[in-house]
């Protein structure tokens, strides 16, 4: 059973171009999928040949996801609306370039280039500069003692506390940042990841 499960995951992971088979990715354990996706590279030729060779097997074993992702015009959301919601996905590039940064109490967004920071210290400094506010940086380093917490939204849409995971992993998965008042953060539903590591 476990063996079949592994094979299935490996063949499914090669189905289609990155970003297209979102449904299937979301159905698998996230950590596993992410590791394989980042290591197998995004060579589109590789992915397409993956489709040809593994297509038959996957469809036999698990038909529903394959059908779901290929249904044209479903869900019935008009193309104008699709374009405008897809825009959001494409502008928040994972790991590369600019992420949006918002801060509680400040009614406008900033954008910053994560790639230009070398580590959390750098990030702290950059955030301070961005908002003209000293104290954000402190939040990153010295978690419990300050007014603000820095959280980020990862690839899966979960909000995490910034500073727990290694820097490389952070910039790979950070989609946007938010500087939140500690008092608001308690009810927010942050994922308690990283505590077991």
């Amino acid at each position, binding site marked *: 059973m476990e063996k079949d499960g592994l094979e299935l995951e490996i063949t499914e992971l090669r189905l289609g171009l990155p970003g297209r088979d*979102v*449904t299937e990715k*979301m*159905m698998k354990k996230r950590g596993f999928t992410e590791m394989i996706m980042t290591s197998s590279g995004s060579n589109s030729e590789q992915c397409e040949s993956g489709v040809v060779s593994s297509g038959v097997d996957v469809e036999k074993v698990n038909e529903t996801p394959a059908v*779901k*992702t290929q*249904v*044209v*015009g*479903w*869900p*019935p*959301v*008009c*193309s*104008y*609306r*699709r374009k*405008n*919601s897809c825009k*959001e996905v494409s502008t928040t590039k994972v790991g590369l370039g600019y992420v*949006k940064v*918002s801060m*509680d*109490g*400040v*009614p*406008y*967004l*900033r*954008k910053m280039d994560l790639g230009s920071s070398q580590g959390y210290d750098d990030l702290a400094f950059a955030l301070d500069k961005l908002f003209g506010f000293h104290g954000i940086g402190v939040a990153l380093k010295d978690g419990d003692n300050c007014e603000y917490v820095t959280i980020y939204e990862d690839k899966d*849409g979960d909000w995490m506390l910034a500073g727990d995971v290694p820097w490389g992993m952070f910039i790979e998965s950070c989609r946007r940042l*938010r500087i939140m008042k500690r008092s608001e953060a308690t009810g927010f539903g942050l994922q308690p990841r990283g505590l077991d590591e």
Partner: protein
Amino acid sequence: MNYFPDEVIEHVFDFVTSHKDRNSISLVCKSWFKIERYSRQNVFIGNCYSISPERLLRRFPCFKSLTLKGKPHFADFNLVPHGWGGFVQPWIEALARSRVGLEELRLKRMVVTDEGLELLSRSFVNFKSLVLVSCEGFSTDGLASIASNCRHLRDLDLQENEIDDHRGQWLSCFPETYTSLVTLNFACLEGETNLVALERLVARSPNLRSLKLNRAVPLDALARLMACAPQIVDLGVGSYEDEQDSESCLKLQAAIRKCTSLRSLSGFLEAAPHCLSAFHPVCHNLTSLNLSYAAEIHGSHLIKLIEHCKKLQRLWILDSIGDKGLEVVASTCKELQELRVFPTDLHGGGNTAVTEDGLVAISAGCPKLHSILYFCQQMTNAALITVARNCPNFIRFRLCILEPHKPDHVTSQPLDEGFGAIVQACKNLKRLSVSGLLTDQVFLYIGMFATQLEMLSIAFAGDTDKGMLYVLNGCKKMRKLEIRDSPFGDAALLADVNKYETMRSLWMSSCEVTLGGCKRLARKAPWLNVEIINENDNNRMEENGYEGRQKVDNKLYLYRTVVGTRVDAPPFVWIL
């Protein structure tokens, strides 16, 4: 019948404005037909291929406003290939040649060109109002013609169109002497906007009531615009994120406070989470709120805003509001008439943002609700039965469960009973979209109870031809029937050919109809255009001796017409 002179009858007719009523009047007698003909001001043509411009002009020589619709509804979901049709050019040309004093043109799902817009702008001296919805084929050059030449333009309303943005100076084409603008909506333009020209235009438009900006209008410009137009009633905010300083924010807040006539708010295409609080001072007057493009804003901020909106009648929102958010809506917005909840995640990725609980809460809290569009992950029969009991006044009920064939998630039963309850309770239901796991039974209910139903959308539903037959036999007022991926075939299609004369159109894609069946239908009903849209084969079907028994795995679109086969069909459309 003529106890009064014609002028008196005509004067009475002036009070009758609905198209249906005017159509009825014209059938009373010859004299009324004639009077009505000459006095009809607004003409509505639901399918541009059902009639020709020449016949329109012969019948109604004096109209001022024309509404035309082109592509079928499923074109919105990319089911109709590019180039299928819906060209407005022949209409504009014919109207330009005639002496009709066109003042208003409203187009939906049509192909418009810059040449057409230029011709339009030059041909009608009193042209006042251009409304384009889901159209394509033109650029900002066409808009420049309209701006330059239409001296009396009041409304330029562009909704969800595909416009080639040449980033030109179309806004500066409005002459300096031009001051009659009432509606300006260019939210769908992708490119940069000449902010100086825009501000000057707004500043010299004292009658401006509706202004909807595109992404390229930043925060500080918005503040200046609102300061110029405090009389604004309907505002579409463009981009709400900015690199500017807090002074701009203060200016914006001050400007917003002065807009005491503001009743409708939309846009927020790119929005910071906290931006909405600037609008709190005007929320208590809002009747319409469209935040369905504001993917950046989290549920908690949406809720904070909505808590202030006690007079809301129309709300369009994303499912990120969650069931809890919908409960807030239910307890706050007692005047709510129309609700649309759109999916944030188009791939159905397991985030159960809204469920049947949200829908039930809304139905319980909003007694005036009559229109709903609801995208969700799951539904139950029990919930739908409760909704039907709470809200028997639905006119439009559209439920989209994201996963096809999904049953009641508690009982694993089909959702036949739930939808059955809706059609039984809602005696005024005119529009219905069904989804989830459904058998022929639901169509039995629809045929039996949905006596006022005019439009029905079916996807991935039903078991046999009986399903479709129940609907065709039962729904006497059906006008538009659109079906995809459902097992209905020739027997249902051919059972009552005359039914299609009472309908505007029928769409069937990925069903069980065969080419032979469609051919038989076309033979029996010469007053129908029976189109097979086959984007892959380009008529190879016929050349290769396509078997009559083979399924039409592309699309069938049929519609009644008085002008026969259209001449502008592309090669991939086969008109039988």
